[in-house]
């Protein structure tokens, strides 16, 4: 079977969003940039960086949650029509919503199309302006029957994190230590210039602004619970709402070789799974298990893990359950350059960041296997295994 490979990864800076609530006067740093104007520079950067002939790009696949307002009307296709976009009319566009897993899902879609011989090159992007479109959208109606039969399907994500904290006995202190580490790793990565190569400046912003260098355990301990009065999850141990776009260029391995594109990683396998919505955060366990099986490897073979840090309580629960199921993730392999608690979680854009980051880490470290995985509201998980075609011995 043909291999699908990742040949390029780029993203905008991730900056904290302020939801457009009534009476809110603060704005996020990228609130003035439309989702379109975050996404088009990412597409162009992928074209420029790889030198791919735009005409060869079959489709732009975009992951985006709440596809309304400027995120609506199939933004993937509209991006191609943008005057600055380097793609041409011959490329198609598809926008997909799998909540937080959206842009990881589209990479799997691209892999499948390429393996089926239905495309040679696909640009996969994810975009989310949480400053411009609130998390529930502008006319947030839900289905009565589903709500009555499965109210947990609509639970506040923070409450699902509390449920996990209870189920896996994750203390507030553990969560805060985890969050603090995420910030420390991200700060170190910023200092080492590890983000430089992936970030495309937009709207005058060239750096992530979620990393709190001054974060301290004492300060975190003083915060009020954010979701339940007597709960343990706080703003500091949750991923912040964020604006941003990300993207990877996926091609067939043959196409990459023929056109001299820099192969970062092979897409070895993908898996999606479902779980109880009230503990949606545990989704990565089952999805990872399936993805590893499909790749024919075990967790021991994996050196790089990118786990989306929706919440510290959720991430720790995943780690505990993984370990219980014989898939222990060693600390030095996890989110080496920091995770979503520090960098932020722009729903639709997170999946492509995780996969792109995992691919670039394989290149940086010379290791062989990487796993990128994330939980999804409503009770799902997705996971993807990448392989470095030229690992260092």
């Amino acid at each position: 079977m043909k291999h699908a490979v990742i040949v390029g990864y780029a993203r905008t800076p991730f900056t904290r969003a302020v939801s457009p609530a009534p009476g809110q006067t603060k704005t996020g740093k990228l609130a003035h940039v439309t989702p379109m104007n975050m996404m088009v520079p990412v597409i162009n950067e992928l074209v420029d960086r790889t030198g791919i002939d735009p005409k060869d790009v079959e489709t732009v696949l975009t992951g985006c949650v709440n596809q309304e307002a400027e995120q609506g009307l199939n933004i993937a296709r509209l991006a191609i029509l943008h005057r600055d976009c380097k793609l041409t009319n011959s490329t198609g566009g598809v926008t997909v919503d799998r909540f937080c897993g959206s842009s990881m899902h589209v990479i799997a879609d691209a892999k499948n199309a390429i393996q089926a011989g239905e495309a040679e090159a696909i640009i996969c992007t994810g975009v989310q302006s949480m400053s411009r479109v609130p998390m529930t959208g502008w006319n947030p109606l839900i289905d009565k029957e589903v709500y009555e039969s499965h109210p947990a399907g609509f639970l506040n994500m923070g409450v699902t994190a509390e449920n996990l904290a209870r189920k896996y006995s994750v203390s507030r202190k553990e969560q805060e230590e985890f969050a603090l580490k995420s910030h420390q790793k991200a700060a170190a990565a910023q200092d080492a210039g590890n983000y430089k190569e992936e970030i495309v400046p937009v709207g005058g912003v060239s750096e992530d602004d979620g990393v709190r260098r001054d974060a301290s355990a004492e300060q975190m301990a003083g915060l009020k619970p954010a979701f339940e009065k007597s709960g343990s999850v706080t703003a500091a141990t949750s991923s912040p709402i964020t604006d941003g776009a990300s993207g990877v260029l996926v091609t067939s391995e043959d196409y990459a070789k023929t056109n001299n594109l820099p192969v970062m990683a092979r897409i070895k396998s993908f898996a999606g799974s479902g779980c109880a919505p009230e503990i949606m955060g545990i989704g990565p366990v089952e999805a990872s298990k399936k993805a590893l099986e499909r790749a024919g490897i075990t967790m021991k073979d994996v050196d790089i893990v990118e786990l989306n840090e929706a919440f510290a309580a959720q991430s720790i629960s995943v780690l505990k359950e993984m370990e219980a199921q014989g898939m222990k993730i060693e600390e030095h392999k996890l989110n080496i350059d920091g995770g979503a608690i520090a960098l932020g979680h722009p729903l639709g854009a997170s999946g492509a960041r995780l996969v792109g980051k995992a691919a670039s880490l394989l290149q940086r470290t010379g290791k062989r296997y990487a796993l990128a995985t994330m939980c999804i509201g409503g009770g799902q998980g997705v996971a993807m295994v990448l392989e470095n075609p030229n690992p260092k011995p």
Partner: protein
Amino acid sequence: MANREIKKVAVLGAGAMGSGIAAQLANAGVEVYMLDKNPDAPKAAIARMLKANPAADAMNAGFMSPANAKRIKTGNTDDNLEEAVKDADWIVEVIVEDLGLKQKLFAEVEKYRKPGSIVSSNTSTIPLHDMAQGRSDDFKKNFIITHFFNPPRFMRLLEIVSGPATDKDVTETMKEFCDVRLGKNVIVSNDTPGFIANRIGTYLLFRAITEATNRKMNIEDVDAVMGRPMGFPKDGIFGLLDLVGIGIVPHVTKSLHGTLPPDDGFQKIFEEPKLVEGLLANGHWGRNAPNGGFYRMKRNADGSKQKLVLDLPKAAALLQSGEWDKTVGAKAPGALEALYRPAGKAGIKKSVEAGKKGLRAVFDAGDAGADYAWSVMRDTLIYAASVMPGPTDSIADIDAGMRDGYNWKYGPFEMLDKIGLDYFIRRAQMDGIEIPPVLKMAEGRKFYSRVNGRPAALKFDFAANKAEYAVIPRPAGIISLADIKRGSKPVLHGQSASLWDIGDGVVCFEFHSKMNSLDPSVMKVLNDSIKLVSANPDKYKAMVVYNEDSNFSVGANLAFAQLALKFNKMSVIENIIYTGQRVYQALRYAPFPVVGAPNGMALGGGCEILLHCDAIQAGAETYMGLVESGVGIIPGWGGCVRYLERAQDTQGKPKGLKNGTFPPVQTAFGAILAPMMAMSTSGQDAKNKLWLRPTDGVTMNKDRLLGDAKAKALSLAPGYKPPEPPTFRLPGASGKASLQMAVDDFYTKGDATWHDVVVGDALSEVLSGGGTNPGIELTEAEMLQMEREAFMSLVHTKQTQARIGHMLKTGKPLREEPLKESKTPAQIRETRDHITLPVKPYDAKPLSGRDARRLKLMAGATWGFYKVLGFMK
């Protein structure tokens, strides 16, 4: 008439008074430049005021709407004085009470001010002529004192003092501006120490403290008798001083002692305020001080709080023995601490109880409180009479000053009318007290009377030693319902409401039940009023809904409802809701314009009547809200539907498939289910929160509210056509599910109780339109029926009845404890009762036939109900 315009004002000084004045100017729509010698002070003051809510923190809640803060530019006196002053129409100085500093500042101001700009000082103690020394003629012509009271937004008194050189036009301009734009009751005082209010107010406070000390009284007793029984603020003497800061006592008393002539009555009672100075020396300067003041809160080891009070008899003993000076006065640590004891209830009962029967009953009560109150009030009232004609020769102004500057219920001369002047003089003479000329001139008469049907007061001719009644002058544009009521008979009258003819074809509908609560009797008079005005278009053109009580209306009378519940008379409740809806609808679609004119609280049913008016002219301090959910019900007199209509008008009415159906529903749901967030904190804020429409008006001076409302009603009258009934495109079941989800989330977090889930369900059923879909246009009648059904479904629940009972008993909303066995929202829904009501025919005309007879019956039974209720208690 004044002919100067005030558009820009420079406020020099950003302390409590300066920033409060700046905020009130911004509230009035004026451009303000606020300076302070401390460059950070103005911005900090604005931030502090923006944080405060009037209900919780009136002293700091300067802004009526947060947007007003943007009208204030800030700077520091050293760098920005020229910029601030050069195009100001009025420059008001609010710095420390130091003549030298003020003179220096005015010299600077003179360099930069434009000719003809008005300059004023907010001093409370320094004479005008001293401050004007060394200034130019133009400065002196434009220089006056404008003395505000703290907090400037809420205290209605403003004293204006002009000098012999002051231009008459300046005084007139300021009188009009401060009255109409700043909402103040302006009184003019001569340039005498303490002006009017502080001179008499300080006398009372100081006399009360020394007398209490000499008699070795307990502070709780003093405050109990010198609070409500006297018509003074409920904090009494010592409690009030704690609130305003006791540092004011030595400051003002020493200033008055230094400036009043030696034969003034105040000099006779003056002594070094050692008690107060001892407290101040130890940092006990008032309620907000870490050490408290006369009262203080002590936090126990277990976290509980205990109220302590200074043991005045012990302190008095130390003062008498001279020990005080050596210990507390010398700031000996611990000496003052030892003088506090746990605060208790007042030991004096008879005189406090007698307060309900009037002042004289207190003085005659025959206990220690009565003797104390008499001796303090005797001297204070005599002093008030003896200061005339110094600061003013108008008793009406003195009374207004004490009412509006010190929150007395009655001014000194109104008190004397209540006590009976002859009784007062006789008893004072028995005490061997000399009676001042003003009282002698008035002997045998009351101070207030009427001349040609208009309110009049005694005017004193000191040279001729006689007094005659003269009409009390009222500024132009003020219509007083009290005046109209004294001079005429109501057009219609019921137990709880009346209709008055206020001239020019306008009628005024007035509630006058206890706290203006609404009952069937109000509805009946309203129904009859609508019929009467509709039937006489030649005579009547428009209606104003207004009253002069401190609160417009606290909402429906719950006691009435509770009694019906007690006897399980659901049909009575249903009739109240049904007739109320219909009468309010009749008001909405009456063939004449209706203007609602609220001030103070307009809650529940009182808010609903306003939502049915064509326009609202609100008083500056209007607190509107639909608070029904607190007692487990939803608005049932059309409030849900009318607020949804307002939300749709503001947020975009769903047309076809344009505009989401849900956002207005969400807005209305939040406002009604979480009323404390949505309640307006001022008339201006009512506009922010959709209670008022953008075209509605706010009147800063509540004395002008009726006049403004009447003018608005008349402007709407020519060619008036009732509005078209709105239609509603709503999301239906998905909307309800989305609202339920929001409430369930709050329930899970612990911010909503299990009965909130039930109340939220009923409300979401109405606002989402029941079984509708976005393709259907629901009529208003259909919406009102859903509102009634949802209302009744809640009344049938035990917990709603429990909430009503609790509110009546304690005056506070009942919040349910978490269930012992915790339930999911779905489980709560399963266990609640569902009821369906028969559909009733419905229209928007006044009630007639059987419905009208039924309303009449209910209205007639109102008093009967109340009597039974009283009996049951």
